[in-house]
C-alpha cells in the first residue's frame, strides 16, 4: 500500500518543540554531568519538566492521565532524544513499564500506575535478562513461588536499566516448570523496586548515559494482584514490549546518526589540513557520503516502522525487525566514521562523538541485535514466499 510519509502540522510542531526543549534542558554539559557524577543518571527537575510538556504520558489514553497521541509521535520524541543523547530512564519508564501495563494490565493497574508515570511521579524499569544476556525464554531462571496472597521472587537479573532510579520493577519470573526455552510458565510481576529484598548493583558499562544494574532478588514478596497480564503468560507480553522498544530505539538511532552526520560534516568544512578544508579531500568525501546514505536508508526504514506501529499494521514485526537490524548496523558504521573523520579529536574523551559511538553499541544489543532481527526477517520472508 502507498504510505504517506509526510508529517502533519502537529507532528512538525512536536518535533520543533522537542528539539527546542532538549537544546535547552539537555545540552552536552547536562549529559556529562548525569553520566559522570549523578548516581541515578537523570535530574528530577528535567524529568518533571518532561512530564509537564506531556512526554511521559504521550501515548497513554487521556483517561489514564495521558495525551492519547500515536506511536509515530512517540518516535518523533525518540528521534530527538537520540539526537540530543538524553540520559535517564525514559525508555525504562515509558516503554518498559508504562506500555506493558497499558497493553496487558488490569483496569486497576492502569488507573493506579499510568497517571503516576505521566505525571513524572514514578520511575520504572523492566528486569528480564539474566546470565546469558539473551532475550529468549530459556534465559529466565528466576522463580516466583506462591505463598498465600503473595509470590516470592528469587533470582538474579542482569542488564536491568535504571534500577536505582526505579520505584517499580516489572520482573519476569518462572512460575511453573517447563521445557527449556518454552514460552509457557513465565509471569510478569510488578515489584516495589525500593523493597529491601531488591539489591541493585551498578554495572560498569561503556555507555554511561544509561545506567545498568545487576539486581539480586532475595525473596522479594509481591502481591498476586501485581501480576501484569496473565499467570504463566508473561512472555508474549515481553515480546510485544521488546518490539515496541526496538521500534523506539530505531528512532533514537536515526536521530543519533543525524547528529553524527551533521557534526562530522561541520568539522570537515571547518578543519584545515594541508592548507585546505578536510572536506575537500575526496577520500573523506566518499566516507561521509556513505554515512549520508546510511542515514537516509536507516531513517526511511525507521519511518516505515513508525507508520506501521501507528496504524497497528500486520507489517509491524517485519518492519521493526528490518529497521532495527539496519539501523543497529548503520549507527555503528556512522559513529565509527564519525570518530575516524575527527582524527585525534574523535578519540578524545572531551569530544562528544564517543558518547554516540557507545550508545550505538548499547542500542545494537538492546532488544535483539542485528543478527537476531535478520533471522526474524528471514522467517517472515519464508512465510510470505510460498
Amino acid at each position: 500500500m502507498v504510505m504517506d510519509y509526510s508529517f502533519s502540522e502537529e507532528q512538525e510542531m512536536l518535533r520543533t518543540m522537542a528539539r527546542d526543549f532538549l537544546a535547552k534542558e539537555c545540552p552536552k554539559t547536562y549529559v556529562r554531568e548525569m553520566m559522570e557524577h549523578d548516581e541515578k543518571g537523570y535530574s528530577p527537575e528535567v524529568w518533571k519538566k518532561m512530564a509537564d510538556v506531556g512526554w511521559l504520558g504521550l501515548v497513554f489514553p487521556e483517561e489514564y492521565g495521558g495525551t492519547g497521541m500515536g506511536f509515530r509521535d512517540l518516535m518523533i520524541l525518540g528521534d530527538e532524544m537520540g539526537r540530543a543523547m538524553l540520559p535517564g530512564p525514559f525508555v525504562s519508564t515509558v516503554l518498559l513499564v508504562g506500555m506493558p501495563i497499558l497493553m496487558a494490565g488490569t483496569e486497576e493497574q492502569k488507573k493506579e500506575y499510568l497517571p503516576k508515570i505521566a505525571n513524572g511521579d514514578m520511575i520504572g524499569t523492566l528486569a528480564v535478562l539474566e546470565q546469558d544476556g539473551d532475550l529468549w525464554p530459556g534465559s529466565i531462571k528466576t522463580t516466583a513461588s506462591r505463598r498465600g496472597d503473595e509470590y516470592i521472587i528469587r533470582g538474579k537479573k542482569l542488564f536491568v536499566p535504571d534500577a536505582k532510579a526505579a520505584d517499580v520493577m516489572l520482573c519476569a519470573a518462572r512460575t511453573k516448570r517447563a521445557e527449556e526455552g518454552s514460552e509457557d510458565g513465565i509471569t510478569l510481576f510488578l515489584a516495589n523496586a525500593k523493597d529491601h529484598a531488591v539489591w541493585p548493583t551498578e554495572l560498569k558499562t561503556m555507555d554511561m548515559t544509561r545506567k545498568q544494574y545487576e539486581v539480586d532478588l532475595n525473596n522479594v514478596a509481591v502481591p498476586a494482584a501485581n501480576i501484569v497480564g496473565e499467570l504463566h503468560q508473561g512472555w508474549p507480553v515481553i515480546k510485544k514490549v521488546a518490539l515496541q522498544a526496538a521500534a523506539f530505539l530505531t528512532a533514537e538511532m536515526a536521530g543519533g546518526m543525524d547528529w553524527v552526520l551533521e557534526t562530522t560534516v561541520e568539522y570537515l568544512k571547518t578543519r584545515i589540513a594541508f592548507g585546505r578544508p578536510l572536506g575537500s579531500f575526496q577520500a573523506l568525501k566518499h566516507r561521509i557520503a556513505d554515512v549520508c546514505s546510511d542515514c537516509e536508508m536507516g531513517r526511511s526504514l525507521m519511518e516505515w516502522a513508525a507508520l506501521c506501529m501507528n496504524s497497528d499494521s500486520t507489517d509491524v514485526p517485519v518492519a521493526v525487525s528490518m529497521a532495527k537490524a539496519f539501523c543497529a548496523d548503520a549507527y555503528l558504521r556512522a559513529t565509527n566514521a564519525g570518530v575516524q573523520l575527527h582524527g585525534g579529536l574523535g578519540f578524545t574523551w572531551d569530544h562528544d562523538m564517543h558518547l554516540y559511538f557507545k550508545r550505538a553499541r548499547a542500542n545494537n544489543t538492546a532488544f535483539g541485535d542485528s543478527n537476531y532481527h535478520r533471522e526474524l526477517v528471514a522467517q517472515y520472508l519464508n512465510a510470505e514466499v510460498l
Partner: protein
Amino acid sequence: MVQREESAKAAAFRAEVRAWLEANLPKGWGTPEYVPLPRGSREAHEFGKEWTKKCYDAGYTGFGYPKEYGGTERPREEIQIIREEFGRTGQPPGPSSLGLLIAAPTLMAAGQEWQKKRFIPKILSGEESWCEGFSEPDAGSDLANIQTTGVRDGDEWVVNGQKVWSSASAFADYGMLVMKTDPDAPRHRNLTYFFFDCKSPGFSRRPLKQMSFDAEFGEMFFDNLRVPHENMLGELNRGWYVAMATLAAERGGGATAGSGGGMMAAAGGARGRMALYGVSSIIELARETKRYGKAVWDDPVFRQKIAQIAIEVEAASASGQRMMARRRKGQLIDEMVSITKNWNAEMRQRRGDMVMEIIGAYSQLIRDSKYAVNDGTWVYDMLRSRGATIEMGTSEINRNIIAERVLGLPR
C-alpha cells in the same frame, strides 16, 4: 514483497491490473518455459516496442507528463499499485531506448513547445526510440572534456567527432548529442545540446560488445553530419547545464528501477523479474539449491545475507516513498537521487555476488549452457550489474555529488 493493508477500492484496482498483466504478458512469462529473445537483438527491440505500446494504450504508463504531450493522468495511489504489480511480476524489457529515461525529461525541462508536442507522445508510446551521445573516448566521468564539434552553417550545424558507450544506439530513431559549439569559451560554457535524426547522412554507428556478452551500447561517428538549428535543446553554449538536468533524470530512473518501484513514466524498470523483484526469487532459489547436501535456505549464514538484501530493497522502497513526500513539500534536495542511484547499483552487485555463492560451481555457466541455472539469468545480472555502478555517473562521481551538493562540502 511485503504485503500491506489497503482499501477495497485499491484492492479492486490491484486485481484489475493483475488480471491485465495475466492476459497480456507473453505466454509462459515468469516460468522456465519462457525463452526471452536475445538481448540487444532487433527482434527483442521490436518486441519491446509492441509491449510498450500495449502498456501505454492500457493507461499503465506515461505518468508524470501533461495530457497535451501524451501523458497519462491517474491518482497517485493507482500509479503506485501499477508499479507494484508490474514490479511483482516483472515484465519483458521495453525497446532499447533512452526515450523515457532521458529524452522525455530533457525535452520537458529544456524543449521548445513544438519539440515537446512532436516527440514526447511517441516516446511515451514507445513508437520512436532514442539514444544518447554524451561519453567520448576522452570524456567519460570528465564529461566537460567533450571534443565532438559543431560549426554553424546557416540554419544547420555541421558535426564531426565520435561518441562511445552510447546506450541504445543500435536501433535508435533519434539521438541526443552534446557537442562543443564554441572552441574559445571556458569549460562548461562551450557545449550545446542537440538532437538528430539517425537516418541523416554523415551518421554511422557500430555496436560495442559488453563484458556481459551483449551489446546494449555502441559507438557513434559523425562525419559532416548536418543537424538543423531548430533541433537545439536549451540555449546555445549552455548544453552542460541541460546535460546535468538530463543526468539527474537518468539517475532518478535508474534509482527507482532496482527497487520494485519503476520509473516515473514507465510501468516498471523493464529489467525483468530478477532485477526488480529479486528477493522472492532468491528465496525460491535458496530453497531449491542444495550445497553439501543441505538446502541453502536452511544455512543461517545465507539466511542472514538474503535477509540483509531484503532489508536493503525495502529501505530503497521506503526511501523512495519518503522522497516523494518530501518533494511534495518542497523539502527534497534533488541531488539526493545520487544516494538512491548508488544504493541500488551497489546492492544489485552484492545481490549478484551472493547468488553466485548460492549456486557455487554453476555460477560459471552462462546462457545456452546445458546446466545453466535459470538459463544464466542470474549470472547475466551479476555481470550486467558491474555496469550499474559506472553508467549514469560512476559511484565515485555520485559520492562527490552527495558530499558536495547534499552535504555542502567544498569542491
